[in-house]
C-alpha cells in the first residue's frame, strides 16, 4: 500500500462568475520514506496542489479527484478525521517562517500545541518532547521560553521543522522551506531536513522553484506547468537529461559553476506562464516552447512514458514524433499562431 496516492486532482478557484483552474488533473504516488520534489514557476499550481492534499485551501477553491492517504480519501473524510490526520500523520513546513509563528506566544507553547492537540500526554511530557525536538534541530532547549522575534530567520525555520516533526508524522509537505534565507542557511536547513527525514523514514513532498535544490535533496522530481505535471522521474536524470522543453529551460536557467560557457549565455524562457482562465486546446506550454510544432497546438498531451521510471508530457517522447527534432519550426504550414523565437536551447 502506498502512503499517498493522488488521482486526477483538480483545483479551481472561483473568481466572480468564472472558475479558473489552478491544478488540472495531477496523479502521483508516494511511498513511505520517499522524497518527492515539486518544481515549477510561480503560479504553476505546485503550492495549491500540495495544500489541497490536506484541504488547507480557502473555501473559494473547488477540489475534485482523489487523495488516498494510507488508503483513506482525505477529500471526502469528515472534518474531525481530517483534523486528526493533519499534523499527527501529515504535517506542513510553511514558507516564510518569519510569519508562520505566533508572535505573542513562546516557542515552547507553540511546539507543544500539536503534541497536546493530538496525543494524550500531560503538559510536562509535552514540554520534555518540545525540548528534545528543539535540540534535534540544533537550537538549545533552554530557549523554549523565548518568543519568535528573539530568533534569527534560520533558527525560526529550524523551529518550524521541529514543529513539523512534533507528532512523528509519516508525511511532511515542505512548501518552499528555504525562501527568504541566505544560501548558507539554506544549505544548512536542507541538510537538516534531509538528515532528519532519512533518520525517521518520513516521506517528504518538497516544493520549490529551485531545481538544483530539489535535485540535491529529493529522490524523485516532478515538474509542474500551468497546473499539470509535465515531467516526472529520478531527480538526477530529470535534471541532467530533461525530456520536456520546459524542464530543459528550468534546468538551463542555472549556470553551472566552473563552466564559463553557461555563465556567458544563460538560457531563459521568454514570455509568462499562461493565465489559468485562458487555456485552449493542445499543450499549454506550446506558445512559449522553442520546439513547438503544429501538432502541439491541437493534440492533447498526457504524461507518456519516456524511458525507465520516467514520464514526460511532450509529443516528442512519442515514437511518431521522435524524429521531429531537426525540423525547423517555421516550416509548419498549419501554424495558426506566430511562433515566438525565444532563447536558443
Amino acid at each position: 500500500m502506498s502512503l499517498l496516492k493522488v488521482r486526477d486532482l483538480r483545483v479551481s478557484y472561483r473568481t466572480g462568475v468564472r472558475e479558473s483552474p489552478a491544478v488540472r488533473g495531477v496523479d502521483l504516488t508516494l511511498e513511505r520514506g520517499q522524497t518527492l520534489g515539486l518544481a515549477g514557476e510561480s503560479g504553476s499550481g505546485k503550492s495549491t496542489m500540495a495544500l489541497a492534499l490536506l484541504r488547507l485551501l480557502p473555501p473559494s477553491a473547488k477540489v475534485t479527484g482523489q487523495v488516498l492517504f494510507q488508503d483513506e480519501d482525505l477529500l471526502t473524510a469528515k472534518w474531525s478525521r481530517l483534523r486528526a490526520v493533519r499534523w499527527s500523520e501529515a504535517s506542513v513546513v510553511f514558507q516564510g517562517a518569519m510569519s508562520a509563528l505566533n508572535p505573542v506566544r513562546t516557542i515552547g507553547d507553540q511546539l507543544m500545541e500539536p503534541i497536546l492537540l493530538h496525543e494524550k500526554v500531560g503538559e510536562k511530557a509535552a514540554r520534555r518532547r518540545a525540548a528534545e525536538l528543539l535540540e534535534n534541530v540544533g537550537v538549545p532547549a533552554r530557549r523554549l521560553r523565548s518568543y519568535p522575534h528573539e530568533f534569527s530567520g534560520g533558527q525560526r525555520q529550524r523551529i518550524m521543522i521541529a514543529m513539523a516533526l512534533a507528532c512523528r508524522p509519516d508525511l511532511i509537505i515542505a512548501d518552499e522551506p528555504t525562501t527568504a534565507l541566505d544560501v548558507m542557511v539554506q544549505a544548512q536547513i536542507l541538510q537538516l531536513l534531509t538528515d532528519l527525514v532519512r533518520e525517521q523514514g518520513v516521506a517528504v513532498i518538497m516544493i520549490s522553484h529551485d531545481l538544483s535544490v530539489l535535485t540535491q535533496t529529493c529522490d524523485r522530481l516532478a515538474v509542474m506547468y500551468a497546473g499539470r505535471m509535465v515531467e516526472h522521474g529520478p531527480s538526477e536524470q530529470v535534471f541532467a537529461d530533461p525530456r520536456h522543453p520546459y524542464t530543459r529551460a528550468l534546468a538551463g536557467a542555472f549556470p553551472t559553476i566552473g563552466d564559463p560557457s553557461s555563465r556567458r549565455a544563460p538560457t531563459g524562457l521568454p514570455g509568462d506562464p499562461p493565465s489559468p482562465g485562458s487555456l485552449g486546446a493542445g499543450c499549454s506550454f506550446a506558445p512559449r516552447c522553442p520546439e513547438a510544432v503544429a501538432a502541439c497546438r491541437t493534440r492533447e498531451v498526457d504524461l507518456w512514458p519516456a524511458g525507465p521510471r520516467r514520464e514526460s508530457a511532450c509529443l516528442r517522447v512519442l515514437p511518431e514524433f521522435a524524429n521531429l527534432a531537426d525540423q525547423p519550426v517555421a516550416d509548419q504550414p498549419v501554424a495558426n499562431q506566430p511562433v515566438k523565437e525565444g532563447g536558443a536551447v
Partner: protein
Amino acid sequence: MTSTATEPVSRPGATPAPPRQHALRRFVRAFAARPSGLVGLGILLVVAGLALCAPLFIGNDQLNVVMVNGPTLAPPSGGYPLGTDQAGRSILLLVIWGARSSLSIGIMATALTMLLGSSVGLLAGHYGGWIGKGLMHLTDWFIALPGLPLAMSLAAVMGQGTASITVAIGVTSWASTARLVRAQTLSVEARPFIERARALGAGNTQVMLRHVLPNVTPLILVSSTLTVASAILSEATLTFLGLGDPTSVSWGSMINSAFSGGAVTAGAWWYLLPPGLAILIVVLGFTLTGRAVEHVLNPRAVNGR
C-alpha cells in the same frame, strides 16, 4: 497589569519566565516616562485606596440618616470639612463612601462590556459569512441606537439596583469594542501563523482562544481603561436620574438627593459640588492612565525600543 505579573508564578510546574518579566519591566519603564499617565495612576490609586479603606473609618452611624446627629445642610466647618447634607451626614464621608459603588459599578460594567464586545467581535471576525454579517448588523444597530435612552429603559424594565445599572451600561456600550476587536481579528486571521495552526489540526475554538485572542488582548486592555471612564459617567447619569439603588450612596445618587433635597434653593454648593468634582477627577484619572497605556502598547507610537 497585576494579572500579567502573577501569571508565570501561578502556572504549575514552571519557574518564573524571564522574557515575560522583561516585557513587564519594559512596559513599566515606558509607562513611567509619561508624567500624565503617572498622575492619572496616582489619582486612581488614592481614590481606590480610600474606597477600599472606607469601612475602617466610616460606619453605619455616620451613613444612616436616623443615627447621624450633625447639623442639617450646614456649610463647611471644622467638624465637617465639606459641610453636611439635609440629614446631617458629613459630605466628605459620603463622597468617600460613594466612590465604592461608583468605582465598582464602573469596573463591573466595563468587564461586562469587554466580555460582550470581544466575544461578538471575535466571533464576527472569525466566522465570516452570515454569522459574521449578522453579528455586525446587530453591532451597527446598537451603535445607531441612542445609548442613554436605551440604558434608561433597560434599567427601568429590570428594576432599580446595582445589577440592572451594570447590565444596562454593559449592553449599551459593547458595540464599539466589538467593531474594534473584529477589525483586529480580521487582520490577525490573515497572518500565516493562523494557517499553520489550522494545518496542525487546530479547530475554531483553539484558533480563536489560543492564537487570535492573545494578539487582540493589548487592544482590549487599552480600550477597557478608556471604557471605565465612560462607564462611571453613565453610572452617575443613571443614578442621578434615580435609576440606581436608592439605599446605597454613590456620586450620582448624591447629586440626585442634593437636587431633590433643595440644595440648589438653599445655596448649598458644598452638597452639589464635591460629588461632581469627584466624578471629574476619577474620569480624568482613568482617561490619563488609559491614554498612557495606549501610547505604550501602540507599536506605531513606540520609539526607541
